[in-house]
């Protein structure tokens, strides 16, 4: 329904430039993500874990953050979010190929374990949910320093079953800290469906326990995501405290390159979710609105593929870490 969409957009008074930027960010992440899978299937990258299907909420959140001021404690699906904040396809390709130049970890961590000092993206490990408490501590420090900055942290719905989720929401709510908790709810923790993880229909219902707003949004509706993200970020920045923002998304791939979701999910389910993919939906809307002209999207893709090609070529010839460097940086003294 074009009209409704137009209304939605005008209500947010989003200009064409912003909308095009959102689409570009989403498509850029998708194109890069597709490349990661190709490299994995070709045996050039032993592992990949994807953000496909999660792009809309990530881009919406990222575009409402202030790069250089705001901080991010991400998780492994946040490829698009890291790109919006300024990391590049080259950075992430260096990581997936475990190169010395990889700004995330110098090839020490698995791919998609994001981190970039230059972009206020803290280093993330594999244990889930721990980063929520880091976000709480960052926001506490921002408050103590009097900085008008906020911290975003993202995680899956499965992670909301862990104790650190509770401790982080409780602490930030008690002290009204500037954190936006972004749940990318794709309905599965690897193979475990959400009904086996929790009793409530929405993860956002958990917010009531902390006296903070909980918002659920259709993660395939880029505009709805943008609105919800903007409100949560504004609320945090205004000093009103944290928000639990849930985006209902689809995991368009298996959990990771080590998983095959066809073993625990029906073909129909998977097909149904693919049809709701946020990308073509947003594209169609922008074309309806005339924000994207005929062919714009394809030429944009061509441009982004070229960027990723160039970055892939660069990453492939980049140097591997030297064996002895494994001993470095256990402590600062090693520097």
């Amino acid at each position: 329904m074009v009209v409704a969409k137009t209304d939605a957009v005008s209500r947010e008074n989003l200009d064409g430039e912003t909308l095009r930027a959102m689409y570009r960010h989403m498509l850029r992440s998708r194109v890069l993500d597709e490349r990661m899978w190709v490299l994995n299937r070709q045996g050039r990258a032993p592992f990949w874990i994807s953000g496909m299907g999660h792009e809309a909420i990530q881009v919406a959140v990222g575009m409402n953050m202030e790069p250089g001021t705001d901080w991010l404690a991400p998780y492994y699906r946040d490829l698009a979010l890291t790109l919006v904040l300024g990391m590049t396809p080259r950075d992430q390709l260096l990581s997936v190929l475990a190169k010395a130049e990889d700004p995330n970890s110098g090839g020490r961590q698995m791919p998609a374990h994001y981190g970039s000092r230059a972009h206020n993206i803290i280093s993330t490990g594999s244990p889930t949910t721990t980063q929520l408490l880091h976000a709480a501590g960052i926001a506490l420090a921002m408050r103590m320093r009097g900085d008008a900055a906020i911290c975003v942290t993202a995680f899956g719905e499965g992670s909301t079953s862990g104790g650190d989720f509770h401790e982080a929401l409780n602490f930030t709510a008690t002290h009204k800290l500037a954190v936006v908790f972004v749940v990318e709810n794709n309905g599965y923790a690897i193979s475990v469906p959400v009904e086996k993880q929790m009793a409530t229909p929405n993860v956002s219902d958990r917010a009531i326990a902390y006296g903070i707003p909980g918002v659920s949004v259709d993660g395939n509706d880029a505009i709805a995501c943008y609105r919800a993200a903007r409100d949560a970020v504004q609320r945090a920045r205004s000093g009103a405290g944290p928000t639990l923002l849930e985006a209902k998304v689809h995991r368009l791939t298996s959990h990771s390159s080590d998983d095959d979701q066809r073993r625990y999910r029906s073909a129909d389910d998977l097909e149904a979710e693919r049809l709701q993919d946020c990308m073509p939906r947003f594209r169609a809307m922008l074309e309806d609105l005339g924000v994207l002209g005929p062919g714009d999207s394809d030429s944009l893709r061509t441009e982004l593929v070229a960027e990723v090609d160039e970055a892939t070529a660069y990453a492939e010839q980049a140097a591997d870490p030297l064996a002895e460097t494994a001993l470095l940086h256990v402590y600062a003294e090693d520097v």
Partner: protein
Amino acid sequence: MPTRSYLEAIREGMRDEMRRDERVMILGEDVGTKGGVFGTTEGLQKEFGEWRVMDAPLAESCIVGVCIGAALYGMRPIAEIQFQDFIMPAVDQIVSEAAKMRYRSNNHWGVPMVLRAPFGGGIHGALYHSQSIEAMFCGVPGLKVVVPSTPYDAKGLLVSALRDPDPVLFFEHKRAYRSVKGEVPDEEYTVPLGAAAVVREGEDIAVFTYGMMVHAALEVAERLAADGFECEVVDLRSLRPLDRAAIIRSARKCGKVMVAQEPNLAVSISSEVSAIVAEECFEHLDAPVMRIGGPEIPAMPYAAALEEFYLVTPDKLEAALRKLAAY
């Protein structure tokens, strides 16, 4: 005897005990439809149902705490932790609760629970899917810790663990799952907890190790045998309690001792074995007690060259043993 992989032996151990004893149940992430991320529990939910093979939420303290409660009520739970690295959120339940329940209740309550988790590296698992953190639990009275290196021991030790009245941490080297095969009898059998195994006899150097390193040690022992050095390879198998008698026997017999392990050396199994030998075998030693293990870095990095650097390969072990032999 039929041949089984390490993973199959573990699965059969669970399956046989679940058939034999309806108190046995499994709680862990993805253990149900998916059959575990390594396939260890494949088919078990189909046979035993959704309650006895239950997919847990992503909460390790919950998995272990719930299993402790179920054990107190009379069940024989298996808590599966997806990777040993992810035991950390459950350390309070393991160390403060499971380990101390019998003691603090003056023997009125016990926790017959088995905690299973894959450990070890060399599979491009990077910092958090490659660790060997068993040492953290081997100093904790009230816990038992076992690490099998063969399919036969894997099944036999698992069955013993499931019948043990106290909490047993059962650690499985993930690199062994499909690469290590061996004979496993169809008939019921057990391997006792707390007993090391001399897997190769020798008189020159006693090599104490466990997990995948046992296979490296056996390989290297043959290389040295070619030059007339006979290594006695001892698979510790039980890391708590350690088999002091077996350690002392082989150390005294050989007079030279090498303790080899995958993780870093500081305050580890290798430290304790070395300390036992230093205290009990002083008059029998012909050389310093030597140790070899991973470097003092947080864990195994991802890049192939870095991972390789971390691992104690057969070549590195051989070099260390030749140095000791030459002492």
